[in-house]
């Protein structure tokens, strides 16, 4: 919903309806615009992001982790990283932030329909994929869905409610792993690539969506290439420092592309045209 020219940079106040503590570093904020009418008209697509303003802290891009439902709350899952996100973590229900957006090229939802889907996420990387998964499930995606999720420790596992509910869905298999076990952890320990080895995949008829730290992305890409995934069937999101969100300020440039406008969703095929640090060893 591109804003009119005169308020291109002007956020709109949005109230925090709920704060969900995902783990010690990640909180999910359920937000809705104070302007009811705007809230009702507001829509977005999985993979897009919003510019979030916090008083005196400026703005930061945060990807939407919820499913677009008319009038429904917008979920932003925020990992504590810098000044703005730290301030946001101190906010409570009823506090107000500023939002503008949505921006960016979303996941190609139409292309996902009718294909097997593999989701590989690490840490906060599950946030944008959560939006895709729930949207696919809401649309009655009938093909197989495999979700692989890596966390540092069992207590770092975020989006637990979603993971449980996905685990209970018929055509979804959901596998978790942690870098370091804690007492009581029965599940896998190790990299997500190890989980990948356990999966039955049909690369010709599947799409892989990955999101997570660069180290993980590199390892998974190598594995997927080995399993025969074509570059155009591998989709990921890029993270960059951003200021304007609308393709002008150029902070988020990657060669001739801008993450805010040409991304944040890219296929591996597209990324290979660029000198992207996450792909270079």
């Amino acid at each position, binding site marked *: 919903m591109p804003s009119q020219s005169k308020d291109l940079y002007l956020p709109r*106040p949005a109230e925090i309806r709920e704060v969900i503590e995902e783990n010690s570093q990640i909180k999910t904020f359920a937000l809705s615009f104070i302007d009811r009418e705007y809230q009702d008209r507001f829509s977005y697509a999985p993979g897009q992001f919003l510019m979030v303003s916090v008083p*005196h802290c*400026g*703005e*930061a891009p945060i990807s939407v982790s919820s499913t677009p439902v008319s009038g429904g709350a917008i979920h932003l899952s925020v990992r504590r*990283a810098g000044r703005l996100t730290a301030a946001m973590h101190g906010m409570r229900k009823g506090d107000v932030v500023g939002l503008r957006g949505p921006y960016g090229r979303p996941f190609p939802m139409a292309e996902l329909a009718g294909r097997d889907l593999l989701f590989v996420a690490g840490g906060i990387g599950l946030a944008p994929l959560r939006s895709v998964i729930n949207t696919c499930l809401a649309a009655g995606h009938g093909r197989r869905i495999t979700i692989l999720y890596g966390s540092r420790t069992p207590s770092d596992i975020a989006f637990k409610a979603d993971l449980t509910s996905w685990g209970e869905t018929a055509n979804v298999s959901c596998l978790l792993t942690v870098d370091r076990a804690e007492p009581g952890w029965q599940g896998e320990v190790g990299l997500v690539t190890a989980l990948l080895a356990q999966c039955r995949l049909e690369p010709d008829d599947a799409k892989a969506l990955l999101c997570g730290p660069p180290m993980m992305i590199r390892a998974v890409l190598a594995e997927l290439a080995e399993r025969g995934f074509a570059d155009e069937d591998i989709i990921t999101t890029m993270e960059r*420092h951003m200021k304007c969100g609308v393709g*002008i*300020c150029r902070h988020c440039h990657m060669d001739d592309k801008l993450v805010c406008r040409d991304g944040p969703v890219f296929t591996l095929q597209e990324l290979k045209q660029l000198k992207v640090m*996450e792909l270079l060893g």
Partner: protein
Amino acid sequence: MKDKYLLKKDHLLPLLRKLKKTYRLIAPVRNTHGDTLFTAIDRLDEVRIDLDKQPQNSLKQFFFPQQEVLFTYDNPAGDSYHFQPVVEESPPSLYFGVRPCDLSAVLYMDVVFLKDAKDPSYLQKRQNSILVGLNCNDPFASCFCNVTRSGPFIDFGFDLQLTDLGDRFLVEFDRSRGQEIITSWQQFFAPAGEADVKAQYQSFLEARGKFSLQVHLDQAVRKLALGEVPESVWEELSMRCQDCGGCAYICPTCTCFTIHDLQTSDHAGERLRSWDACTFSGFTRMAGGHNPVDRQMRGIEKRFRHKLQFDVKKDNRPSCVGCGRCVNICFGGTDIVRFINMTCCENS
């Protein structure tokens, strides 16, 4: 000749005086210290308009100021947060004496600020602008617009365009607003004849021969596109770059900016936009400290690639207009001309 007019040099000041009644007049002014800057003129009789020197600033700061307020905000209690747009109406402004390089730079900025998302502040200022160009009969020592194809003469993009023919200017217009000026103040303009147009062409030919710098831009562009710029060139550049940001700030086409909040009281503040340079390490550093670009090695590389590789790929022309303002101002001696020359001789 149709659509071409003559303006006697003696009548230039009287014309500007008339135009100044309608427009805020911005022209190159030589100040008492000896610097020439594009300046908004309050009193025409108190300044010296200088068409002999290149203004040290471009028009960038007028359309895209070094610092401007995007909006103010207040947050009287935690549960409210209001944003108030800052409406700063720029008066109708006439920019006089704009050289082809600077004109080309404005056309480039139009693409950046208006092609997709329309930047409201830029749009407002640009819509209220009249550009009166001046073709360059005598390129300056650091100029290389001949190789960037943005000068020394230009035949589009202006409202009015002047060419110095000795005791008179040949006047052309490209847009209706230029024509309106000619119509409104027709007592200043006489139709040009074929001889005047020939004289203009002769000036153009002569001007093309007067460039003193040899800049093999096309060769550098080609090497960049083919990935043939040796790593040693980037290493040398990164060693030399002193991180001042001056090349980007002085450049009429460098438009990177940053946005930040300036708290003015406990519960209020301003969101400011200001010039930024892609050569700085904070330009790409993300919250939490991770930086996908190593400034030490890549800061200056990004800038040259953007201008000579990515923009060429995207728009089929470099985003350098050859104005030469950055030439010889680099603290480490790595301006774009030096880079181009380094790139070209590395192979031989």
